[in-house]
């Protein structure tokens, strides 16, 4: 009990300290790097709270992909405005203290209210846990994401697609390769790729399959695959295309199509909208979700409408 408390207190202090550094730090680059570290410490915090799915998602998406996107954005911004390198954007400084106090009070109120709630038997969480057997999966997180709160997941896919379309709309006309522009590739990179890329595929598919009964699922798997895409893009193995190829267009909407298609089919077949007819349906939808999450994330990083192999 004693050691756990020390670890938890250290984690909490670390989170607060890192957050302060991110927000009030002297340089933007430093803030980005510390934000990635913050994501990793947050993943540890989720693990301490016995939420391994969230911890994995936080590490893969929050620290990994988001970190890569932020660094890529920073590099692009510095290219566009070299004179502003090293600057930190400070809005109105005098707003900082009042906003901080208000936010702190709000969070404190919510926490206090949450602590006041009686742990009853009729909270949504308890009901969901009791009804878990009907979903066909034994991982409660997957059950909630795909069965009980299917609409949320469906709309999240829509949001991701919208984000990609928005990025395309803003970046139109500039096919910018984020890979290295050096003539010779550093040693060790080829060896790294030949080991890591296959492992990425394996881990991604394992996470997808394991999501039914253990921590894992489509989001984590999609993030891992996207990280593989980021690596290939950075090392120049995948280069941007001018337009999105047909297959990639299909993949971008596949998650939405499969999920909503199945949901509508179930509606016409007599049961509720978005109810899934069995475990096989859950895995089908999750597979579609996984690749529909991986591709837009990789494309967002590459700032490209599509990707193709280097030699083609």
């Amino acid at each position, binding site marked *: 009990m004693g050691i756990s408390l020390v670890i938890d207190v250290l984690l909490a202090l670390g989170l607060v300290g890192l957050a302060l550094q991110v927000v009030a730090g002297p340089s933007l680059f430093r803030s980005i790097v510390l934000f990635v570290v913050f994501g990793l410490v947050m993943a540890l915090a989720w693990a301490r709270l016995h939420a391994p799915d969230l911890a994995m998602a936080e590490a893969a998406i929050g620290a990994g992909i988001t970190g890569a996107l932020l660094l890529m954005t920073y590099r692009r911004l510095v290219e566009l405005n070299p004179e502003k390198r090293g600057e930190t954007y400070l809005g109105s400084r005098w707003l900082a203290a009042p906003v901080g106090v208000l936010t702190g009070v709000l969070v404190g109120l919510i926490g206090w209210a949450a602590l006041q709630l009686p742990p009853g038997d009729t909270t949504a969480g308890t009901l969901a846990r009791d009804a878990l057997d009907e979903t066909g999966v034994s991982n409660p997180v997957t059950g909630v994401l795909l069965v009980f709160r299917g609409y949320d997941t469906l709309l999240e896919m829509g949001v991701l697609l919208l984000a990609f379309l928005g990025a395309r709309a803003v970046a139109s006309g500039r096919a910018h390769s984020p890979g290295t522009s050096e003539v010779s590739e*550093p*040693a*060790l*990179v080829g060896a*790294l790729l030949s080991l*890591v890329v296959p*492992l990425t595929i394996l881990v991604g598919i394992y996470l997808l399959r394991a999501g039914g009964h253990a921590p894992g699922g489509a989001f984590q798997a999609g993030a891992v695959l996207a990280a593989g895409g980021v690596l290939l893009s950075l090392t120049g193995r995948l280069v941007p295309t001018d337009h999105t190829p047909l297959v990639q267009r299909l993949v971008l909407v596949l998650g939405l199509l499969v999920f909503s298609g199945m949901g509508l089919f179930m509606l016409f077949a007599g049961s509720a909208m978005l109810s899934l007819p069995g475990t096989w349906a859950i895995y089908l939808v999750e597979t579609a979700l996984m690749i529909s999450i991986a591709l837009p994330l990789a494309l967002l990083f590459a700032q490209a409408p599509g990707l193709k192999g280097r030699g083609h």
Partner: protein
Amino acid sequence: MSVLEIVSTGLLAAGCFFYLAGTIGLLRFPDVHSRLHALTKADNVGLFLVCLALTLLGESLRVALLLLLIWLLGLLAATVSCHLIARHSIRRKGGRSG
């Protein structure tokens, strides 16, 4: 605590000590390449000791295999990153400093 747990705790403490030493090297060494020495080598040993400690606690072949994989992948990532940073520091910044 059983003998296994005592040994594991000792190994964990040793691993943390190496991570600490690596960070101290990061703070004390004068230039980029020297700091890379500290980070890469000390952190690798730290990771090895932590993985070893967890293998003893895991008590199954599956866990041992997975921890071995974790150690190897950590080693790979650290080595490649170290080389890339060192190379960038020489080539781009022309920093063949002391």
